[in-house]
Each structure stands twice: as structure tokens, then as C-alpha cells.
């Protein structure tokens, strides 16, 4: 036969001291235990046990908080009981139960000010509060009855009545935070690449972030990820500025045709070409400088300029051309259009493609039709036809390549575009 051991009896006495609770007047139940488990997002899982008046069919229970998610009410045998929420209380069909346990989640017991979270309750009994793992306590009122720390998590016993516990929850340096920042950086890099922007530095930082994450160096990974995001975003902005500057310079040059000396036009044209070359290899700062120089030159050129002035401008341009370096030289070698490949044109149903991909841009669609019409086209043909700078042509090409609609190859020293054969189409 079992009997209650002496040590158990001591425990019983201790428990009795805590649990011997006289019924609260006016209530249909006697509160027994209350535990609050706080999660990192401020949600609190509440477990409240009480003993209902056995003569009642239903009891009205006052719960902590104002919103109750995933509410379950069970009797001493684990049988789920029906309940109904009323303003200020929950009515539980107790049907003479010995003991009822109500569990639910609520977000109304916590609030956040700056970086500090607070949990405030007015508990009918001594209660146990577990704050999130890694949280740093910064307030306890009133003094706790007891406190232990387990797995980096403080579990505090607070007395009945109003209490307030505040903590700071730092996520920096954790695996999850590192993972989130990696994801954010990857999105930023992908977005830039989808827009045709070359973000080699950002990609390198992202690779380092991944490496650090895999090695468990989460703080380091976070730093690399942040750097990758920053680089991707800054490069996109710079690329956009360079693209705009090239476009504006070319428009300006066209508007100045015949109004300023041909020498200035040629030098400006050379600078714009150099800007485009720099853009194509991802040297966006250099590209922006060249394009802005071209703009300045065009704007400052006098419309009635004589031969002497032209010579001065040409001299200045020569200096600028030297700074353009290899890009210019390479450009010069591409003047002659190579021969078109002899491959038969690919038969693609563009209407179907456009219907299936409503997100395609109007100008991209026009380019695709143009390429289809010609059975393939050089980049210069596309640029000339649509009057777009090389950088824009490249970005368009990258977009359509990503979509799987365009094949980009090099014929001679010129970039050549062909429509890509689609699966399912003849």
C-alpha cells in the first residue's frame, strides 16, 4: 500500500501554505494557480486553474487581459467545456466540475515603450511569470516572492495583486536575427540584379554574411548582411542617377545639334559613350561623372562658337577622353557592325507570352516585337530604333533574360539579341 511519505508531507505543507485560499466573496469559484508565459512578440500564454462552486451549472470567470486567443477550458478529467465570452468575464459550462483549467493567449497584458517591454497584471493569486529567453530584467514591482533562471529565461513568482515586470529584449547577435538580415540583404541584391544593376560588392558581402552565418558567427553575419543591403541599395541609387544623367546628356546633345560646334558635339558624344561603357561594367560613379561632364560641356558651349573656341573645347575633351581610358578605346573598335548570324529566327508566340505575363513592361514588349520582326537584333539597332542609351538597353536585356525570353550573345564585338524558344511553343 502506498502512503504519503514524510518528505512528501513537507512538500504538501509547503503547497498548502501557498494553495490554501479562501473563496473570494462574490465569486462562483476559488482561484488556485496562475501562470503567465511571455513570448518575444509580447503575446502571453495564460493558464488559470480554479475550483468552481460544485452546485453551479455555469461559472462566470474574470480572466486577465482583454483579448483571448486559442481559449480552451477543460475540467479535471481533461474534458473540454463550452464557454462564452461576455464583457468583463467568460462564462464556462462547469456542470459541477471539481477543477477547471482555462488556457488562452492574449496580447493585451504587455506593452512596449522604446526598447522596454512591460507585463502588468492584477492577479487574484500568487502567480508565476516566465519572461522570454534572453530578456534582460529592468523592473520588478513589487519585490518577487521567488525567482529562478533556467535556460537563459527568468521565471518569477510574484505575489497576488497588481504587479509589473519590465525587460529589454535584444535580438541582435541571435541566429534568427542574422537569418532575417540575410534574407533582407538577399532581397535587396536580387532586386538590384533584376533591374539590371551590377552589385558585385553587395554580392560579395552577402556571400561573406552567408559564410559567417554557417560558421555560427551571427553578429558578424549581421554586419555583412547589413553591408550587403546598404551596398545594393546605394548601387541601385547610383545606377539610377547615372542612367538618368546619360539619358539627359544624350537628349541635350540632340537638342544642341547644329547649334554648337560639331567638335563639341563629338567630344560630348565620346564622353556619353564612355559613360555608357562604364555603366555596362558596373562603374556607376565613373559613368555618372562622364555623363555629367558631357552635360556641363554641352550646357557651357556657346551656340555661336568660332574655330578657336572649338579647339579649346576639343583640348578639354581630350583630357576627359584620357580619363575615360580603356572604355573609349574599346568603344572605338566597335564601330563596324558585324555580320548577322545565319541561324533561322525562332518562332515565338509573343501574344501568348504577353497574355501570360501581364507584368511585362510596355517598352520591353515593344523591343521583343522589334527583335522578332528582325529575326534578331544588335544592341545598337535596338538603341537606335528606340532612342535609348546603352545602359537602358542593357537593363532591358537583363530583365528579359531573367524572364527567359531573350538570348544574349556576342557576335563579333557587338551584343546580339535573339528571342528564346519557349517550352510548349512550336
Amino acid at each position: 500500500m502506498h502512503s504519503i511519505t514524510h518528505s512528501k508531507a513537507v512538500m504538501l505543507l509547503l503547497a498548502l501554505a501557498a494553495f490554501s485560499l479562501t473563496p473570494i466573496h462574490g465569486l462562483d469559484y476559488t482561484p488556485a494557480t496562475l501562470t503567465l508565459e511571455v513570448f518575444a512578440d509580447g503575446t502571453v500564454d495564460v493558464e488559470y486553474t480554479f475550483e468552481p462552486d460544485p452546485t453551479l451549472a455555469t461559472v462566470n470567470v474574470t480572466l486577465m487581459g482583454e483579448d483571448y486567443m486559442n481559449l480552451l477550458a477543460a475540467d479535471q478529467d481533461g474534458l473540454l467545456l463550452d464557454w462564452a465570452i461576455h464583457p468583463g468575464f467568460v462564462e464556462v459550462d462547469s456542470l459541477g466540475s471539481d477543477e477547471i483549467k482555462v488556457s488562452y493567449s492574449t496580447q493585451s497584458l504587455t506593452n512596449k515603450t522604446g526598447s522596454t517591454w512591460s507585463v502588468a497584471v492584477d492577479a487574484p493569486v500568487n502567480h508565476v511569470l516566465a519572461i522570454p529567453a534572453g530578456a534582460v530584467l529592468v523592473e520588478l514591482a513589487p519585490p518577487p516572492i521567488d525567482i529562478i533562471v533556467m535556460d537563459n529565461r527568468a521565471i518569477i513568482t510574484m505575489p497576488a495583486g497588481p504587479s509589473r515586470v519590465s525587460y529589454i529584449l535584444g535580438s541582435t547577435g541571435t541566429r534568427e536575427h542574422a537569418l532575417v538580415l540575410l534574407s533582407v540583404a538577399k532581397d535587396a541584391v536580387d532586386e538590384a540584379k533584376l533591374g539590371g544593376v551590377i552589385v558585385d560588392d553587395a554580392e560579395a558581402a552577402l556571400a561573406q554574411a552567408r559564410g559567417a552565418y554557417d560558421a555560427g558567427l551571427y553578429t558578424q553575419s549581421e554586419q555583412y548582411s547589413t553591408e550587403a543591403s546598404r551596398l545594393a541599395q546605394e548601387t541601385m541609387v547610383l545606377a539610377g542617377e547615372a542612367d538618368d544623367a546619360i539619358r539627359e546628356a544624350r537628349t541635350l546633345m540632340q537638342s544642341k545639334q547644329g547649334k554648337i560646334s560639331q567638335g563639341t558635339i563629338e567630344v560630348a558624344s565620346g564622353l556619353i559613350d564612355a559613360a555608357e561603357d562604364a555603366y555596362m561594367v558596373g562603374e556607376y560613379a565613373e559613368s555618372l561623372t562622364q555623363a555629367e561632364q558631357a552635360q556641363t560641356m554641352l550646357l557651357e558651349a556657346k551656340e555661336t562658337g568660332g574655330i578657336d573656341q572649338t579647339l579649346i573645347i576639343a583640348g578639354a575633351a581630350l583630357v576627359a577622353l584620357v580619363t575615360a581610358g580603356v572604355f573609349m578605346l574599346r568603344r572605338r573598335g566597335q564601330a563596324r557592325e558585324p555580320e548577322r548570324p545565319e541561324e533561322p529566327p525562332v518562332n515565338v508566340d509573343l501574344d501568348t507570352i504577353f497574355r501570360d505575363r501581364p507584368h511585362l513592361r510596355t517598352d520591353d514588349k515593344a523591343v521583343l516585337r522589334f527583335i522578332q520582326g528582325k529575326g534578331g537584333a544588335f544592341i545598337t539597332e535596338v538603341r537606335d530604333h528606340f532612342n535609348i542609351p546603352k545602359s537602358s538597353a542593357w537593363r532591358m536585356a537583363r530583365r528579359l533574360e531573367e524572364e527567359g525570353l531573350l538570348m544574349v550573345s556576342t557576335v563579333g564585338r557587338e551584343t546580339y539579341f535573339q528571342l528564346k524558344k519557349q517550352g510548349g511553343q512550336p
Partner: protein
Amino acid sequence: MKPGFHRVPPGSYYPLKRMSSAVMKMNRKALSLIVMTLLATSATGLGLVYAQAAEPRSRAAETLLSVLENTNGRVSALFDSVTAGGGQVPQEAQEQLQVAVTLRAQAQAHFEAGEYEECIKKSTEALNAYGKAVAKLHRDDDDDEAEEQLGLFTAVERARAYLDRLRSAATDLESQGIDISEVESLLDQAEAALDGAEDALNQGDFDAAEDHLGEARSLMGQATRELRSLSNTKRREKAERFINQTMIRIQQLEEKMLRVLSRYGVSEEDTQSIIAEFRAMTAALEGMDLDRDDFEGVVGRLRHLVKESHEIGRGRDEVENETVERISDVSRLEAMLNRYRGRLRELEQLGYGTGNMTGVLAEAEGLLSEAMVKLEEGDREAAEGLIDQANEMLDDIDDMIDDAEDEDDDERSRSNDISRSDGRSGSS
């Protein structure tokens, strides 16, 4: 690390490592044990004195000092980060931090002097001063986007906690002979969806994680509905028992009421009217048919009848309402007493020696009988004292039974562990 305690991976913010439901259950059990122990040791906080009091207070004080050390490190780092970023710490924040540091030193001194209560008080004051110092910094280093995605990790963790509760409810129903295979299947699918969400999170695919989490929630919603539906059979049985108990209680209440009222000189007409009320109530209870009537309707009528039963006898000129209330109290406590008798019988069947508890129960019963006599004699004050004493005794009995039942649960789980372990040894 103790078995069954889940360790948060180093550098991890959330305990995301996947756990089997069995381990989860052990964790819950562990947490329950902690809760029990913490609440038990809380006795000193209630001003009770016992031999073991010093030990938990010294432990609590020591833990608080360790918590303070952690807080001090974190808050100092927060201040440093402000200055490192080229910012300036407000003067009042700096002063508050100094107050916190001083209080912490005082708490440490109290601890070393063995003054644990003072140490706890000073530590709490120090913590609050750190809190104020942080508040004065007015610093918010949140990253909204990151916070939103971090919330998904917590959402999965919480969903697992809910899944655990549903599994526990299902197991309880199964132990009462109910087929829970359909619920189990839904819960298994929900667990798989949560695993999928966790995998997606670990790969940084937050959209996929959200999808998996949504699926898990939907499955758990279905499981909850199914569990409710399965519970209904048992709830009907429970309702039937409750109706029978209520009938007995009302008959006993009638008897008590008439005994007392006859001493107060209530007229024959009034007495007959009270009897008629009781009889009508009994007839209404007898007329309830759980097979025929809507269950919710029956519960609603029961609620109404029970409420009415507490009103019978009130509002008479000859008898004060308080006297009628005390009769109701006696009736309620007798109902509790009968409930504890049933639980004691179950414990006896399990082989527990319940002699002591049965004795206390008999004593409480005696007090209630005596209270009724006092009420009949018109000595309400004496009756109230006796009722309060009986109430306290029943509270004690309840706790003793709870602990005996908990001990039995522990015994069973230990036996199960041993037999499982024997089974494994045998098979290997």
C-alpha cells in the same frame, strides 16, 4: 542539463530546435513542477514561518543578484552604444544609472551579511532604477522589417505550445475510452506543417513559413472543433450526473430550509409555497431529457434553475436573507464534501492510505451539521464560524487530494518510463 529540459541553442533567441511531442510534454511537466515548487516556496512571501524558509530566500536573493549583473552589463552596453554612435547620454539617464549601480552594491552587501530579505528589496530597487535609466535614454533600436519577420519565429513557437495543449486534451479523452484517431491525424498534420514552417524559417523563406503556419493553424482549428465534438458525449454523461446531484441537493436543501423555517414561525401558507417551489424545481429537473432536448438549452435551463434555487426562501419577513444564504452555504459545502468523498474513494482504490483525509472530512461534515443546528437555534453568528471552519478544512482536503493525485501521476509516469526502458532492453 536535466532530461526533459530544452536548452536554447547557443546564440539563439528562441528555442527553435525541433522537439518531439513527448519532449514537449516533458517540458510542460517540468514547467509545472517549477510552478509548484515556486508557489510552494512562496509561503515566506505570505509571512509564514517554517524551517526551510532561509534557503529559498537566499537562493532568490542570489538569483536576483545574478540577474542584476546581467542587467547591468546589458544597460551599460546600451549606454556605450549611444556614445559609440556619436550620441550623447542624457544627464538624467546617467544619474539614474549611477543610482542603480549604488543600489546594486548595497544589495550585494546585504547578501554578504546574510540579510536576504533586504538584499531582495534592494535588488528590486536597483532593477527599477536600471529600468528608469533605460527609459531616460529614449532610444528605440527596433528594425520594423526585422521585427515583423522575427515575429514569425515566435508565432511558430506559440503554435507548438497550442498544439501541445491540444495533444494533451486528446490524450485525456483517449484515457476515457474515446477514439481520437481523427484528431491525432489532424494534429500530426499540423505538426508536420509546423516543421515545414520551421524549416522554411531556417532557410530564410519567410513567405513559405507563413504559408505553412497558416496551414498548421487551420488544422489545429479543425482539431479543436473535433475535440469539442468528441467531448460532447462525455459532457452529456456529466450533465446527467449533474442533474441527479442537483436533484438530491435540492431535496436536501428543501429539508434544511423547512427545518429552519419551522423554528422561525413561517406561516403554513408560506411554507407550502416554498415546498411548491422546490417541487416545481425537482419536476423541471426530472423533465430534462438530454436525448431529446438541445444540450445547450438544457445547460441554460440548469443554470437558471440553480440560480432560482438560491433564491427560494428569501424575501420573507420572518427570516433574514443572511440565514437563507447560510443554509445555501451549508448545502454548497456538503456538495463539495461529497465530491471529495468520491475522489478519496478513487485514491483508496489506487492503494493510498487516506485515513487522515477521511478523518478531516468527517470532522468538516460534523461542523456543517452543527452549523445547521445553530441556524435552527437562531444563532447565525455561531453557525457562520462553523461554516468558515468547515470551508477551510475542505480547502485543506482539496490540496491534500491534489498532491496525492499528482504523486500518483508521477508514479505512473515513472513506471511507464521503466517499462518502456525494460521493453527496449528486451528488444535489443
